[in-house]
């Protein structure tokens, strides 16, 4: 039975190209669908171009939603990458 999971993190740095790539590579390894939302936009986390287009910037809240058998692990992995990307802030 599909499971859903969601978490929100406030970025402390802009989401640049490299972390966006790391995020999409990680998301693609899960069977669950993974979506990111920031402001009015919501995108497929497995599409690096969509993640970059999200334009998530420092101070913004990003919500990670996953749905599927490994949804919980997917959200944990993506939130960890967002936290790390924020910290590096490159």
């Amino acid at each position: 039975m599909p499971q859903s999971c969601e978490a929100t993190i406030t970025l402390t740095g802009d989401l640049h190209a490299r972390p966006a790539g790391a995020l999409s590579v990680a998301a693609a390894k899960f069977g669950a669908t993974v979506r990111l939302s920031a402001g009015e936009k919501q995108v497929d986390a497995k599409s690096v171009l969509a993640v970059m287009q999200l334009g998530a910037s420092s101070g913004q809240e990003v919500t990670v939603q996953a749905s599927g058998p490994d949804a919980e692990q997917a959200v944990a992995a993506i939130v960890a990458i967002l936290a790390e990307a924020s910290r590096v802030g490159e």
Partner: protein
Amino acid sequence: MAPKVGIVLVSHSAPLAEGAAELAGQVSGEGVSIGTAGGTDDGRIGTSIDKVERALRLADSGVGVVILPDLGSSVLTVRALLADADDLPDLVVMADAPFVEGAVAAAVTAAAGGDVDAVLAAAQEARHATKL
């Protein structure tokens, strides 16, 4: 680690191919083989069938290669190679995709372990990506 689909960037300009490869490699992280074939054999703007063939062989890890041409006449060079060369790697496909966005999307999908069809689809879907 399982072998990953390779990528070859074919451009009329060597710096353009190398720059796009560097960018795609940085975004996707290590582990994806991205070959480049930019410019003519004597370093001018143009394309070289020999450079494409070398890049293709280097990029192949046995699970396929996706080639991205920059502009239309790169397509002709790639097609000529695929039609004439012997013993090319199996599963070589050409993507109809924007060069930079396609390279980045393809590299990320290859890094995640996508097969040739998935990497090709990621490159080609890049055409629909907006930036703003």
